[in-house]
């Protein structure tokens, strides 16, 4: 278990080189990131700006929104005016404020769900690739079966059993979505497990956790990060669809999916207000997709 000096990750010839030639000072991570951003295509820059706006709105919702989330400030369905920029909803709550709070609720819940899905699916996937044999078989077949039922349908069945609440929603979607993460993380880490340095770590007697987190995880990170963006979009759309169906995030919390549902009747009068929350969902997914597209292009370009 002791760290012998010759298992240092820096290869000997590199160490020699570093001593002989003075290396110019490395750019800090921030400088590199900034350079990459400046060079990114317009669509990716647009995406990043949009995502940043959503994060700021979500984090500082109480400071930005003119009213609170559930305050009754006017009569029902008031038109757009100076006082209520986007009018009021079916109970007389300010639409703009609820849109801003929605950034916190809807995006926050989708984000946490994706993180949980990655913790479950990612760790099981890497584990399956390391252990191999029957553990791999059992996990793989279980995932196959779970994936044989469309996700939204499976989620509907489970919600009818456990009842609709935010906790249930997050856990159900996270578990179901983790199957997709499992597939990818297992496939990617399969290529890493066979490498010599993993073998070396094994021979050295490192534990499972060390091999997972120190040897494999850093090497599968780029595809996993891109996948995180895509999975987030998928989870976000699924949660919104469920909320729209009235089975996701429950009132009175401000949530974009349920806001579309609650104000949908306005469409019949030619009012575009119900499209605002739907548009907010669409804009964020498009933005994330743009960024992921760029990121995938970059990481695959580097490998060639």
């Amino acid at each position, binding site marked *: 278990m002791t760290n012998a000096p010759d298992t240092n990750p820096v290869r000997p010839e590199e160490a020699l080189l570093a001593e002989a030639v003075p290396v110019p000072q490395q750019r800090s991570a921030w400088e590199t990131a900034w350079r990459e951003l400046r060079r990114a295509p317009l669509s990716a820059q647009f995406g990043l700006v949009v995502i940043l706006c959503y994060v700021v709105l979500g984090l500082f919702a109480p400071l930005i929104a003119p009213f609170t989330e559930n305050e009754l400030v006017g009569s029902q369905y008031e038109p757009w005016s100076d006082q209520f920029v986007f009018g009021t909803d079916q109970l007389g709550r300010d639409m703009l404020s609820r849109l801003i709070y929605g950034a916190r609720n809807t995006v926050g819940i989708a984000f946490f769900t994706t993180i949980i899905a990655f913790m479950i699916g990612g760790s099981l996937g890497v584990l399956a690739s390391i252990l191999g044999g029957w553990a791999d078989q059992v996990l793989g077949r279980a995932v196959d*079966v779970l994936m044989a039922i469309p996700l939204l349908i499976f989620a509907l069945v489970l919600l*009818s059993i456990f009842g*609709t609440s935010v906790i249930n929603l997050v856990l159900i979607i996270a578990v179901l979505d983790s199957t997709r993460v499992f597939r990818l993380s297992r496939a990617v880490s399969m290529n890493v497990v066979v490498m010599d340095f993993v073998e070396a770590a094994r021979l050295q007697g490192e534990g499972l956790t060390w091999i997972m987190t120190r040897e494999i995880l850093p090497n599968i990170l780029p595809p996993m990060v891109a996948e995180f963006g895509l999975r987030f979009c998928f989870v976000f759309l699924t949660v919104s*669809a469920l909320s729209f169906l009235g089975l996701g995030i429950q009132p009175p919390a401000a949530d974009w999916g349920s806001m579309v549902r609650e104000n949908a009747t306005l469409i019949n009068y030619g009012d575009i207000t119900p*499209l605002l929350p739907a*548009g907010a969902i669409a804009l964020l997914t*498009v933005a994330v997709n743009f960024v992921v597209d760029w990121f995938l292009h970059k990481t695959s370009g580097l490998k060639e």
Partner: protein
Amino acid sequence: MNAVLRTVLQRLGLGILTLFVVSIIIFSTIEMLPGDFAKAILGQSATPETVAAFQREIGLDQPAPIRYLNWIGGVLQGDFGNSFASAGALGGGQARTVLSLVAPRLANTLFLAGMAAIIAVPLALVLGMLAALYRNSLFDRIVNLTTLTSISVPEFFVAYILMLFLAVKFPIFYSLANVSPDTPFMERLARCALPAMTLVLVIVAHMMRMTRAAIINLLASPYIEMARLKGLSPSRIIHHHALPNAWAPIANVIALNLAYLIVGVVVVEVVFVYPGIGQLMVDAVSSRDIPVVQACALIFAVAYILLNLLADIASIVTNPRLLHPR
């Protein structure tokens, strides 16, 4: 031909096994019900006697394997049991069978999905191939950007935008698709126009991107390059070298997207108040009518598995390597 037959049979066996396991999963959801479930269904005023009667009604007094056999036996004969919605009137009123709820709506959903598929599949394949053949052209880039945008958009957004512009601002189509069994065929088509259009828009984007990727992948393979270097004409390359190998990916793309249609149909039916199976399922989930949920889920899952199975088999029977073994 032997190899093809063997592989097809293997796939079929695997498909049946998957169906069996999925039916067990859907059945066992009822096992996961929390203990106070009967109270939740029957209301707080339920006496212990009615709770016991209800549990007997759904068969909770028998061991699970026997109940599964009874259930799956019934399902295979089209009997999905009774809806919980009538359980409140236990001892008195007539229980509604799940089948009587599901059957008419299943026909409606199949009609809508079929209409969308008939329009979407040829459209997407043609557009996808054009984008692949003229890749990196202006056409390809525009198509790429629009489809990337439209797959990122929730279905209900597309649906409401269509409704706003094509039914409210310019009243061309019906904004609601509330058909009844005695609606004449032509009117039914007209009423389904907007929901079908929504589904078409959503799946064409997916299907096109996948077709484009599959064809580009194919055109980049070494034997196509070899054919090109030999100096063959483009039409011969497409017909003799590319197409035989393209059926498998194309079949996969179609099946995957028809399976996607299954999920899209749930949301679209709710938006347009279309009396289909998706809306029935959503209603059943909010009232926790488990037998109806189980029946709907089983129908969706079976359709999904069968479509994937069909794609697998299509790609096997068109695979030149299996058809002409050395």
